[in-house]
């Protein structure tokens, strides 16, 4: 029974994706780009860096990178939390 449901869901998902991708999305190579054009022109004098991608990562969308650095920090703390050696002070109750 589970196989049948899984198969149906899978087919629906793939149909969605392929139809969306092939027919409806903008042709590859010709994206709408009004926000990006502004960034490409003004990145150099607003952020002073030649690498426009780094200026987007650290200045235009710096908050994302702050979130991302926090994600890395969370993952490291989480992994070290889980891999701690389990010697408890004394039994819970």
């Amino acid at each position, binding site marked *: 029974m589970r*196989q049948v449901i899984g198969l149906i869901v899978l087919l629906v*998902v*793939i149909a969605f994706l392929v139809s969306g*991708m092939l027919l409806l999305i903008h042709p590859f*190579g010709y994206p709408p780009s009004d926000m990006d054009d502004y960034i490409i022109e003004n*990145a150099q004098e607003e952020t002073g860096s030649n*690498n426009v991608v780094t200026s987007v990562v650290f200045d235009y969308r710096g908050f994302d990178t702050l979130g*991302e650095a926090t994600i*890395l920090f969370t993952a490291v703390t989480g992994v070290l939390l889980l891999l701690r050696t389990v010697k408890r002070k004394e039994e819970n109750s």
Partner: protein
Amino acid sequence: MMEHVPLNFPFLAAALLVGISFYILIFKRNLIKLIMGIGMLASGVNLFLVALGYRTGGNAPIYTDVPEGPMVLPVPQALTLTSIVINVAVLALMLTMVILIYRHTGNIDSKKSRILKG
């Protein structure tokens, strides 16, 4: 619109990658295969994001000694950078939990605890 259909291969590749990873998520039992499925789903979505930003004949948006020509969109690349780091973090945490599960139960087949995903 129709004459561009054959050129949409990158989006088709991204869609197939996501489709395959859904197949893995729904049917595969082994936890490690499940994690690989999520890794594949992540690379599918990243490929889709980067493919969104390509401009024909464009070169990298870096002004140091760049040849003439239009520039590729920088924002999808910044998004993909963040998405890759997020997937590294998620994979690290999932692998740690698989280590712990293996240490507790001695097997990494998720038969008994499998949730119906899909």
